[in-house]
């Protein structure tokens, strides 16, 4: 007789913990053939608010951690993911109905992307920052700083690569994030949460809410303690437009949907720019 396996309960990831949805709701996730995989927590407004609180609480420390430290923490995520290769690949293969080769390729690119952004943590300020030759006796310099708390929607396909491509540039620079993984393929995202929980990422820096972006995102879009929205994974243009309208209530930075993104291409700096503020400091020169 074969062994009866022990199945996992798929929960949310908020403030470094794995709570069920406060609403008590779950939804069924199926594989590419429509066969049942798991019941996954379906996040509610209350969960979104809890996640904002966790992200805001984590911001002060994460945003002032040294860039070297943030780089190492991101690199550590790649290390921990590497140890779960088989689990990720199986989940991608099963959920997205792709070949093992394609699933492996997606995961490899995702892990490498964490490494890529880990390296940016202590370099982007040198690329985006400037010292400015003003016409007067002042030392004037500009440095990028994180925007704050970002609410992000991961792409609907390429579950782990899409989620990684959205998350990594947001946290590499010191933002904290509430992200919604692909609602159709959320399982690899939940496994990523387990990697984050066992790596060195402080609780609350990344919060993952499974569920329906169309239901949860409006609460985040109008939440006054959220500074920016990343609508990368929103497919419906009218939903994106409505979210951007809500975002205007507190002048949030909004990154537009990216329906045609090529996640396997090497990213540029525009994601890092989207969630950075440039601060300029004037300091007099004199004896």
């Amino acid at each position, binding site marked *: 007789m074969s062994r009866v396996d022990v199945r996992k309960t798929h929960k949310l990831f908020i403030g470094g913990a794995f709570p069920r949805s406060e609403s008590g709701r779950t939804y069924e996730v199926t594989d590419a053939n429509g066969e049942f995989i798991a019941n996954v927590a379906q996040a509610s407004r209350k969960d979104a608010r809890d996640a904002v609180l966790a992200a805001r609480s984590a911001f002060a420390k994460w945003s002032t951690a040294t860039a070297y430290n943030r780089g190492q923490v991101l690199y550590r995520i790649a290390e921990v993911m590497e140890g779960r290769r088989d689990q990720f690949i199986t989940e991608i293969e099963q959920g997205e109905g792709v070949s093992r080769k394609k699933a492996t390729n997606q995961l490899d690119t995702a892990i490498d992307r964490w490494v890529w952004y880990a390296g940016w943590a202590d370099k982007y300020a040198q690329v985006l920052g400037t010292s400015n030759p003003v016409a007067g006796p002042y030392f004037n310099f500009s440095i990028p700083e994180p*925007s704050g708390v970002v609410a992000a929607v991961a792409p609907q396909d390429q579950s782990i690569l899409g989620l990684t491509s959205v998350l990594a540039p947001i946290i590499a620079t010191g933002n904290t994030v509430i992200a919604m993984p692909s609602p159709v393929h959320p399982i690899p995202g939940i496994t990523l949460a387990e990697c984050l929980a066992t790596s060195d990422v402080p609780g609350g820096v990344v919060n993952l809410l499974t569920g329906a972006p169309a239901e949860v995102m409006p609460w985040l879009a109008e939440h006054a303690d959220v500074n920016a929205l990343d609508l990368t994974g929103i497919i419906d243009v009218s939903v994106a437009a409505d979210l951007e*309208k809500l975002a205007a209530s507190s*002048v949030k930075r909004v990154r537009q949907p990216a329906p045609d993104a090529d996640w396997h291409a090497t990213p*540029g700096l525009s994601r890092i720019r989207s969630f950075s503020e440039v*601060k*300029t*400091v004037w*300091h007099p020169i004199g004896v």
Partner: protein
Amino acid sequence: MTFDYAPAPESRAIVDIDSNYGLFIGGKFVEPKSGEYFKTINPATEEVLSEVAEAGQADVDAAVAAARKAYEKTWSKMSGKDRAKYIFRIARIIQERSRELAVLETLDNGKPIRESRDVDIPLVAAHFFYHAGWADKLEFAGYGPDPKSLGVAAQVIPWNFPLLMLAWKIAPALACGNTVVLKPAETTPLTALAFADICQQADLPPGVVNIITGAGDTGRMLVEHPDVNKVAFTGSTEVGKAIQRAVAGTNKKLTLELGGKAANILFDDAPIDQAIEGIVNGIYFNQGHVCCAGSRLLLQESIAEEALHSLKRRLQTLRLGDPMDKNTDIGAINSQAQLAKIEELTKSGEDEGADRWSPACPIPEKGFWFPPTVFTNVTQAHRIAREEIFGPVLSVLTFRTPEEAVEKANNTPFGLSAGIWTDKGSRILWMASQVRSGIVWANTFNRFDPASPFGGYKESGFGREGGITGLGAYLDAEDKS
């Protein structure tokens, strides 16, 4: 024996204001299809200066079409080197006509001639000069090997620095290869119309710059126009939010430079007299009509009394009156509506229990005026500590520790600027890193430069103007993953 200042009025003979102005579309001044005109007045005398066209939908359509045509046929095809030369020409003509522009600005806006002559117009010329040189060097700016322009830019600017805000909008837009339709504020259209004349003198190709005058409705039609690719707005947070809503769901690139409620933080080790000069400049410069004005003064408790005493003594020497007089420190409030807003908010300060003080200050009979005003016993809950007054009104609060100063400075939805006054270098840099604002002035305030990026955090808007960072607002730098 008392000494007094003799009048030192600047001559207005240098300006020649037409009795009415059309819209500047496709390189020519044209009558508005709307048939509507409105008056622009000198806020210091309430004298009507001119009548300007009020652009309606058909006029906005025509201006956008002219900008589109110029973009497709001329400007986007021109080499960066040639674009640069046109912008350099503009910078030079502004320098040549600087006194005329300063006088015109002061007449239409009410700001002291000393400020328009020594601050506004020199910065306008510098802004065009700086950006001209970028036009043929964009591939070195860090936005990729071949950064592309966006297309037609719709730009709406405020009345507090009319020509300077025009420069902040138009110079980077043109350098990056875009064409523009710009709407100046309805109370201060004249220097923008003079700029149209400068474009003609520079032989700028028709349609590259279009100036349409009008009020809020004209601005709304412009930013909502389906054929614009970029919207840039400087003004109130309330209107900025409305524009963000209007632009939602379009592919228009948006930058917003909105309100502020800056903290000017004075530590006990700062040289008090020098700091008081900076604090006075921070809030009373340009009648406080400055989005980055230091409208909240945070005094360290141990020196609060001494600093207030110095501040009040200094305010008694400020001269309010004829903006055309070269000795005037405080000019006219820009409009009746703005005066009413300042009066309403200052009344709330008294009603909510803060103590109001102004120096003895004769107020001219005609025009719109408000004396420099200081509120003490202000709490963070008071409206005068939370809302942007946009007038010569300072709210004073106190703090004990640097941490408390940071907490109070950041306790606002705005995040445009901050000032730090202390002799301790490490404290300056620590404070600068803690304050959530786009500009931090250490032992100075209200400094501007075309090479220095300007713009806010939080509800003060997004995007930067000036410097290499500001170019990003007018280039397509979005990579696709």
